[in-house]
């Protein structure tokens, strides 16, 4: 799979995640009267989810410039999810 296509898929996945994470039902769940590390739960949750989305954007944008070479070597298992490539080779 090419880098841009992979990036597009990641972008859409990130977008959907964000839509769910910031949806009213989720916010109601985290609007509970509770504290995490001395921070109100909702406050903590919103910034954590937001930070995660930003990290995902950075991760995806990085891919848009083409897959870095080490990505291929550090996941040999990746071959198994590409039957098309193997069929052609065989």
């Amino acid at each position, binding site marked *: 799979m090419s880098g841009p296509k992979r990036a597009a898929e990641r972008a859409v996945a990130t977008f959907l995640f964000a839509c769910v994470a910031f949806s009213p039902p989720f916010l109601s769940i985290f609007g509970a009267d509770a504290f995490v590390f001395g921070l109100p739960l909702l406050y903590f949750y919103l*910034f954590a989810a937001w930070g995660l989305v*930003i990290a995902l954007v950075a991760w995806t944008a990085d891919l848009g*410039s083409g897959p870095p070479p080490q990505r291929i070597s550090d996941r040999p298992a990746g071959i198994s999810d590409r039957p098309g490539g193997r069929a052609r080779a065989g």
Partner: protein
Amino acid sequence: MLASWSILVVALAYLCLLFAIAYYGDKRADAGRSIIGNPYIYALSMAVYCTSWTFYGSVGRAASGGMDFLPIYLGPTLTFVLWGFLLRKIIRICKAHRITSIADFISSRYGKSALLGGMVTLIAVLGITPYIALQLKAVSTSFNVLVQYPDVVMPPISSRVPVLKDTAFLVALLMAVFAILFGTRHIDASEHHEGMVAAIAFESIVKLVAFLAVGAYVTFGLYDGFGDLFATAARAPRISALFTSNDAGYGHWPTLILLSMAAIICLPRQFQVAVVENVNEDHLKKAVWLFPLYLLITNIFVLPIAIGGLLHFPDGSVDADTFVLTVPMAERMEGLALFAFIGGLSAATGMVIVAAIALSTMISNDLIMPVLLRLNWRGLAERGDLSGLLLSIRRGSIVMVLLLGYAYFRFIGESVALVTIGLVSFAAVAQFAPAMIGGMYWKGATRVGAILGLSLGFALWLYTLLLPLFARSGWLPIDFVEGGPFGIALLRPYALFGLDGMDNLSHAMFWSLAANIGGYVLGSILSRPGAIERIQGALFVDVSSHSGAFGGTSFWRGSAAVTDLKALLARFIGAREADRVLGDYARRRGLNPGHPREADAALVSFVERLLAGSIGAASARVMVASVAKGEVVGIEEVMEILDETSQVIEYSHRLEQKSQELENTTQELRDANERLKELDEMKDDFISTVSHELRTPLTSIRSFSEILSDNPDLDAAERDRFLAIIVKETERLTRLINEILELAKMEAGRMDWHMIDTDPRDVIDEALAATSSLLAGREISLTLDADQWLPHVHADRDRLMQVIVNLIANAVKFCDDSRGEVSVLAGQLGGRFYLGVLDNGPGVPPDDRQIIFEKFQESSEPLADRPRGTGLGLAISRQIVEHFGGRIWVEDAPGRGAAFCFTLPISRVAPVSAPGMKSHEAL
């Protein structure tokens, strides 16, 4: 002690510093050493999104609505998640078409329509005015609050102060001056404002640091960190409600997120910094996460400051919108308060300057110039240098925009919270989103659809959001809001057609966007796009496949004089610049720049795009039309252009290739299938033949065995004769099976070959010796006629001998019974080793010469009483010879009989091959 003059001096000094940065940035850009050419400055310039709304208003919102301030910053993050689909495409389109504003974008997409450009501009101006008012309100309020230091007193209402003494008015004028200085010093062909971008980026740093400083002071100075602050707040039930259960619910969050998602690309100032001022598309990759990160950092301290303010001023006497300023003031932190004021000033000036420049570009390019050109464009076109006029229009527009903002502030904005004002603006610019995004992905969208959608959306925005605000400020009867116009309850602006129970903003967004999108889609479907609309639609939607400068795409047929075009350009961008640009163009195309000639369609289009950068797409079109002969292409030609230039031809070409490949593959498959069928048939034949061949000896073995077993009293001689037959048939059977196995092995390629350099003479001698026994008892002469020097061959010795023995045995078998003659010839023929075995038998008819080398095929000539072979000898011989790279065949022997011959490639040439020197041997 903070005197008003000292605050003024600091503020002015700060603005001068900004101007110095902008000036330096412009100078560096002119020198070709840009200081904004990196993703960090780019991301910081996008942070012009954070205005006074963020700096003061978010805290105010948080003080009453808890985390409600946040969705406005989540939206841009969500849009940037999809940057690869949206932002990058917008940038590519704008770069290709020299688009300088959102009005230009929409007008350009829908056939360079001047009407659409004007509509967008009008909506933008009306929509952004409250936003500018918000900044003016924030600056004047913060100034008036700070002036009271050390007392914390809310300033008086502006409308009771004469205009000329009103701080907000002075602020508006000051900002107008700065916007003019920043943005309209000269008309640039590229329409980049590098200096302004540098200043905006600097401001983004200042406002961030100032806000963080106040936040850190409240959190860590007044309280002992976040834990302490929230713990203290949790003890006050009214405050703790802000960050726990939200009474209003979260139903309006999607509305706010959606609004801000649209705003981050539709706001004219965001369009300006993110798209128009983008110098390198690659900067996006970093900026798309750096900018949201900036927003996140900015927002961390919003709630702490709000809580700090509420705890500090529990009686509600202090406007929460001023907490950023008033909390440090109350704590006698003079320096921090001043710094906060500068931060707020940064946020406001950044927004006002960029918005004013963006709006003034739109007003001059898409509103005033088209009107001027249409009303009296002949007179205008005859005038000399128009760049001065253009600059004056833009400067006038800036002043007008700021005065409009001030008017809004003075008459309406006074009583409304900052965030509420801002959201009205967001809702207005969100109306651009359908036409904009739809135009990028839907080729069928038309001008009529865009106009219909925009006007419906705008009308509903006006009715459900702006007019009620007027009414609440006392400029319209409040009955209008509460009872509906003329008392028609169904038309109440906050509950249109009985849609009740939603917050005002969501209600307005629902109706305006529904009408907008509905009108857009319906209008597009029911109308037919014109020629230029179609071309532009294709160019916008397929911008990536038309990457580059669209050099080949031209709407103009016919031509214009180069001098006319140059004169036209000079009027708008100055004579020197025009000379330079046209010279560059000529050099790039390898033309002689000095030679006056007719400009071709490509140059006419180039000039049009260039002009579009200065006066907008619609006006540029009118101006170029005034000097270009010929006319705009018609629909047939458009389709022709599309056929020629767009990917259609490319696609069809590729399709053709693919189908050709497919055809080839199919043919190959078909051939392979035929071959398989043949092989299958052969296999069947082979098996039936083998069975037949095996059955013959088996039958005779069985019958003789039965005779022997049924007749135990058979005499000895008879018994021995039968037994001899059984033994002979068994041997034949064994040989047959061995040969079948051998052949199968060869055909399957599993044979072990010992290929070595071989002297054929030794092999022939051995073969002759081995076959001599066959001659016993028969009248057959066997002779060898070989050259003295035979060339060596590369072969498996034993197999080669097998071939020769086979051929000799074959010859012996078929030669004349009474006077049998078999001769072996060996020598060199055409650079190859040659061997022939001749007999004087009946010969092989021409029809059989091919098939006798097949398995179990023998000559169709009646064999009479000749001993039968296995029928595999020749097939095996052929396999062997072909494996050695040789050829085997049969021909007529001279005189009578058959000649079986084969040739083999030579591995080493024989030393000498003197003709006539032959050895004759008789055996």
